[in-house]
């Protein structure tokens, strides 16, 4: 066995206020391997990475790099020790070119002036060497997300990182881009670099990593060879119990609930966001909206919810044209919506849990009588929903903003599903939510479906779409380019090819899946 290139022993980090984020965490990374760190949200992965990169100082424990004990006071020390980090949220200057971003902070100089030619050449050389294909010249903001990520990786490599930490790198990528990233990671390790890969999508972890460290509740619960584990044993280690993420398909499909016909959506600046959208959703089915983010799925959901004007075409809910109805009238007809971003759209984080749970039903006599709030009714409703949706919270009067992401999402789900909806709009229901809560939210959505809701589901997670949807439509550049009836052989690779516009479906094939 080779000596570890990086070894963290007994790392403990307690935040002021007493939150124990890391409690005696051990991590041993061997040179040239891809080492995955997995765990649910709040398991302490991010804190550990911040310690490794010098952003957090551990309260106890030691760190060795290449057998040398190190004591980082900031990221600068970590970079000098050969550690590079790519965050989930990139830190690039959008208006700068690729090469400028890569060399920013340690530019090659010719005298006192910036040696651009040399910078471009270096970036080109690096990108060829590590198979991170990206043109050094265009401005970063013009690149797709996958390429921006490569720029981030190049930035670390330019600073000669021997150990590269990637924080949930696949969260923002389409399947094909994930493959390209994996190719690059393999090229990196083939040339002796070491990669630490943080993730919670287990299939990817199993594919790319050599060894896996599992974290739970701030502690390391195990270090395993990837070849010795499978998805369910890994999930059980992460959660601490057996989890099943399988859901049952809809038994029967009912009447047509929502008709979208030739819908056209235009942004405020006149740019067409979506055009010629035609689809139907039936009671008791989940229709998955597939597509790379920004291809019109979110906009369609907003239009149905009444938050975005319709520029052409029609929306019909159970025979009633939707166009004339206000948001409240749509909600009164049984429309519910779990929006994409719970903090920006789904909740008032400064208000209490009880107020958030009542906010969509302020015409309900249980909550309001003659304009006066019925505090007891609002509170009772919250207590009941907290129990029914097992929301972990101190009480109904606690501010929503103090809850964890998973529990915030449960507040949104509880409010929207407290009464059986007729039509349910769901966008990214489990983004940044841990496995336990994901399981619960999926169950809530399928329960709503079985209760007769027509569900429109959009998600960046293809596994989620494949697990939940009865039918799927693929969006590309604001149009529907393919439709499928979900079946066991349908894979994310197939969907990915349509999502990226690589393949196209014949009108006949599409019509076959358009009920």
């Amino acid at each position: 066995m080779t000596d570890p290139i990086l070894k963290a022993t007994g790392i403990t980090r307690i935040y002021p206020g007493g939150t124990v984020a890391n409690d005696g965490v051990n991590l041993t990374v061997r040179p040239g391997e891809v080492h995955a760190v997995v765990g649910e949200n709040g398991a302490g992965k991010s804190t550990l990475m911040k310690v490794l990169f010098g952003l957090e100082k551990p309260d106890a424990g030691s760190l060795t790099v290449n057998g040398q004990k190190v004591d980082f006071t900031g990221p600068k020390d970590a970079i000098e020790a050969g550690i590079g980090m790519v965050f989930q949220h990139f830190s690039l200057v959008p208006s700068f070119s690729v090469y400028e971003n890569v060399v920013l902070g340690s530019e090659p100089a010719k005298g006192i002036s910036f040696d651009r030619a040399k910078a471009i050449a270096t970036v080109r050389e690096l990108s060829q060497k590590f198979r991170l294909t990206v043109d050094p010249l265009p401005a970063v903001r013009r690149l797709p997300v996958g390429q921006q990520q490569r720029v981030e990786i190049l930035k670390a490599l330019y600073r000669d990182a021997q150990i590269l930490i990637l924080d949930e790198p696949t969260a923002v990528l389409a399947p094909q881009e994930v493959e390209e990233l994996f190719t690059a990671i393999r090229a990196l390790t083939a040339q002796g670099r070491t990669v630490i890969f943080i993730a919670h999508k287990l299939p990817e972890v199993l594919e790319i990593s050599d060894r896996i460290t599992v974290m739970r509740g701030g502690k390391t619960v195990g270090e395993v060879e990837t070849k010795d584990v499978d998805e369910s044993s890994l999930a059980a280690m992460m959660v601490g119990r057996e989890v099943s993420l399988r859901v049952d398909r809809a038994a029967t499909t009912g009447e047509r609930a929502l008709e979208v016909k030739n819908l056209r959506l235009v942004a405020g600046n006149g740019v067409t966001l979506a055009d010629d959208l035609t689809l139907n959703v039936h009671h008791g089915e989940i229709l998955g909206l597939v597509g790379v983010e920004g291809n019109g799925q979110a906009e369609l959901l907003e239009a149905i919810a009444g938050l975005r004007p319709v520029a052409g075409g029609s929306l019909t809910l159970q025979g009633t044209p939707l166009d004339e109805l206000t948001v409240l009238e749509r909600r009164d007809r049984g429309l519910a919506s779990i929006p994409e971003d719970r903090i920006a759209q789904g909740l008032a984080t400064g208000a209490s849990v009880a107020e958030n749970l009542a906010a969509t039903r302020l015409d309900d006599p249980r909550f309001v009588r003659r304009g006066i709030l019925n505090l007891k009714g609002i509170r009772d409703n919250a207590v009941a929903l907290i129990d029914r949706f097992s929301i972990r919270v101190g009480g109904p009067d606690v501010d929503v903003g103090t809850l964890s992401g998973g529990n915030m999402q449960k507040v949104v789900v509880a409010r929207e599903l407290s009464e059986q909806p007729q039509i349910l709009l769901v966008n990214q229901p489990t983004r940044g939510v841990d496995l336990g809560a994901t399981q619960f939210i999926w169950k809530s959505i399928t329960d709503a479906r079985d209760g007769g809701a027509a569900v429109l589901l959009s998600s960046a997670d293809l596994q989620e779409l494949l697990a939940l949807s009865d039918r799927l439509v693929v969006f590309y550049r604001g149009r529907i380019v393919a439709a499928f009836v979900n079946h066991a052989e349908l894979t994310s690779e197939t969907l990915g090819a349509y999502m990226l516009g690589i393949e196209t479906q014949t009108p006949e094939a599409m019509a076959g899946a358009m009920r």
Partner: protein
Amino acid sequence: MSSIRPASALTEVTRVLLAVAIALAVAFLIVLATSEEPIKAFRTFLTAPFSSNRTRGLWIDDVAKLTLTGLAFSLVFQARQFALGVQGQVYVGGLAASFIALSPIGVTPLSIPLGMLVAMCAGSVWGFIPGYAKARFGASEIVSSLMLNYIAIRVVNWVIRAHLAPPGSGQLNSPDFPDASVLPAIIQGTRFDLGIVVALVMTGLVWFVLYRTVWGLKLRLVGHNPTFAEGAGIRANVVMISTMTVSGAIGGLLGAVYVQGRAFGRIAIDFDGNLAFEGILIAIVAKSRPLAVPVVALAYGYLRQGAQLMGLRTDVPTEILGVVQALIILLVASSFTLPGRAFIARLMGRKPEVAR
């Protein structure tokens, strides 16, 4: 359901008190540098407002007015609208109440309630305009409300000078109102009048509206997150306009309390002495919570009156008073970013926000 946790409320109070202490220390240094008798001057500053019935009346009169303007600002701030139009509303409200007082109704007992009502109507119109302009045309309420302030002040001053002042007298105020149009004194011979009662009743009313009515809940939800409120079926624009209108009514009421109060009993040009604007400070320190507004007004009013009495009774130059007042405002307002905040938080056993 204002979820005020005792620990955090305590932290805030500590923070504000610390800021006041620093402000007083700096003020003392300034007095030391500018006065022949710094100890006497500073003692006047600290004790004068409480020294006699008359000065206590001055203080309470300020408290009443600061409370009303603080409430008006709190309301719009809770809806996260930065409408700064209270001053303009005070002027149009004051003028409206003056018309009632100087009309034949002025000698009847109806004058005071009717004057207040008319003032509230005038103020609410002044509050409605920036709200509507924002909803309809996207005009920034900061700019439009400030401009409306200038318009109101200039127009009202002109009406007073050109039409209400006795012709040819060269005065810059209206004739005195009839007794029936002046708020009754609670303590005879002082400014301690009905104004403070009006202010306290309004405090209760604003609290009730904000925390016990559906409109108040909608207002707060829009303030927390307008995008969410729209998605929940709340018409954020309607809430926004109505909030500014209601806040305008409170501003107008303050105008009536001004001109009907025992301090004036008539309308004069520039009558608010910029006090209306200081409601911003009151609202910020009170974190826009109506029940905290009178408490903050009580403390701030004391310092304000103390500084003014120091100017009248000692050799501290009047210019310095402005400096001292501005310092207090500056320090109290910036107490929200004082260094050592985490330290205080830990002292209070409260978890600071943890970024994981």
